[in-house]
């Protein structure tokens, strides 16, 4: 069991209100050492606001936060914590390396770490170029490098793949997986279900500032569908409705979607073929974020 006093991240009823509405509402979050925790939620769910509060950038309206047992704003609060919040931001008139040197000084670190973190994010070759000339992918990687300066045991990363092209995203995810495998605790926010599925151990789902569910990542499959194309489609649909009930069978033109467990696929195939129905496609479709929300919360619409 986890000692709540020294958990890498621990919040109690953490709340931030803007005007009348709560951007983050009584959030209770506990992240265990070594865990890669996905903080999943659509845009405006309150992910960034939560991370800003954890980092002391934004003052909570109420509630408390502790990192490694240290209270928000106490001395050494951000020791062994590295963070990247809402996109990278550096001095455009400095090179990547100079930016990191300046930040190392702000952190009270030896500049010797700079070369190591540049290597880690594979930016050494372009480290002497002005930050203003970097692509978004390079800027994000420099952001990760800055977060690694203090050799943190806790990394807090806010949508680090946001805005990247597919190749940049794949690179960044590989880097994130590598960082997670080095024994660090990682708090990774994202609005992409597939991303947290690829990278994280456990997922907390945030909707309108409320943590609506927490699951090991393997249990996020609920809400997926078995997709089936068969001929004749009407006969297939009738058989499936008879077997599973009409509310678990959906039909869009020739495509039938079944709300059943993925292991049912083999039995369904045998049954339909045995009845003289030709099955031309039968596959498992992972749930999208909306379906996961539905399966976790019963809310049919993702909060905008």
């Amino acid at each position, binding site marked *: 069991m986890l000692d709540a006093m020294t958990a890498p991240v621990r919040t109690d009823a953490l709340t931030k209100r803007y005007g009348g509405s709560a951007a983050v509402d009584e959030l209770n979050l506990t992240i265990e050492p070594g865990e890669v925790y996905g903080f999943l939620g659509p845009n405006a769910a309150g992910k960034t606001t939560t991370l*800003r509060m954890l*980092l*002391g*950038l*934004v*003052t909570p309206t109420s509630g408390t936060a502790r990192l490694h047992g240290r209270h928000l704003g106490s001395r*050494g*609060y*951000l*020791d062994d*914590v*590295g*963070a*990247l*919040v*809402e*996109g*990278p*931001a*550096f*001095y*455009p*008139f*400095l090179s990547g390396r*100079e930016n990191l*040197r*300046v*930040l*190392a*000084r*702000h*952190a*009270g670190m030896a500049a010797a770490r700079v070369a190591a973190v540049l290597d880690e994010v594979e930016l050494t070759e372009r480290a002497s170029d002005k930050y203003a000339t970097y692509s978004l992918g390079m800027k994000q990687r420099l*952001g990760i490098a*800055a*977060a690694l*300066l*203090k050799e943190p045991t806790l990394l807090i990363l806010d949508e680090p793949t946001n805005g990247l092209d597919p190749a940049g995203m794949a690179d960044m995810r590989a880097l994130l997986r590598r960082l997670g495998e080095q024994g660090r605790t990682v708090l990774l926010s994202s609005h992409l279900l597939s991303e947290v599925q690829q990278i994280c151990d456990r997922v907390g789902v945030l909707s309108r500032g409320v943590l609506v569910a927490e699951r090991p990542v393997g249990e996020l499959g609920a809400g997926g569908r078995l997709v089936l194309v068969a001929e004749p489609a009407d006969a297939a649909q009738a058989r499936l409705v008879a077997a599973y009930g009409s509310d678990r069978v959906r039909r869009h033109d020739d495509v039938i979607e079944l709300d059943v467990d993925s292991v049912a696929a083999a039995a369904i195939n045998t049954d339909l073929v045995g009845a003289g129905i030709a099955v031309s496609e039968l596959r498992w479709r992972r749930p999208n974020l909306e379906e996961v929300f539905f399966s976790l919360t019963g809310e049919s619409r993702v909060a905008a």
Partner: protein
Amino acid sequence: MLLPNIRAELAKALRRPANWLLLAIAVTLTLTFAYLIPYAGYAGGTEGPPNSDLGLKSMLPGEFVGNAIGGMPVFVGALAVILGVLVLGTEYSAQTWKTVLSQGPSRGTVFAGKLAAIAVATMVLTLVLVAVSAAASALVAAVEGQPFDWPPLADVAGGIGAGWLVTAMWASFGALLAVVFRGIALPVGLGLVWLLAVQNLLASIAAPLVGWIADLQLGLPGPNAGSLVAALGARADTPGVADAVGGGQAALVVTAYLVAFAVSGGWLLSRSDIT
């Protein structure tokens, strides 16, 4: 943590091209208005204006301290405001507050580092203006065959101290504006409007008409900066230079403004959300 944070701020200040541009403009303006134009006027008039000897005297080594600091109440002060805005405002415009503060230093430490960088930068600005004014006055003396009568060292030191105080006060005014308005453009604009327009309007139009504005004026930063440099030898015909109050009182008031701007900037920064 303070010392490394001061070094971080100095590294940023040194590498920001705009700071060097500000220094170059301060040097150019000071030389132009204290030496080039007066010299052109002195050398150009064949008849000789009635006060041409006075004009020459103001360009000789004995007067260089006043020339170096004479621009500080207004135009060099305006450049110092921009410097102060840049030191703080860049963190807003480049959104780097979150990047810096995520490294763990307290806001107070970072702010103190920035004040230290402002103190160093305004000292450099003052020393450079004093040095180029001394060089220009030596050149005039050599060309005109006049004696090199340098002022006593104490006067030079006093001028440097006053120049530093005035430019640091204006720079911390800029720093406060940057924290209040969270950026660069608006704080620079408003700072310059205050320095170049409002102060002038108050002094030249409002004060002569309305008694209490005239009294109020005596407590404002501009007239006190002007009185301080006037007490240390700046020529009274320079815009913004006026011996409205005594030098000692002016030094106290300017120092009070410097402290007030710095403290309120730090206070505001410590309690505002970084978004």
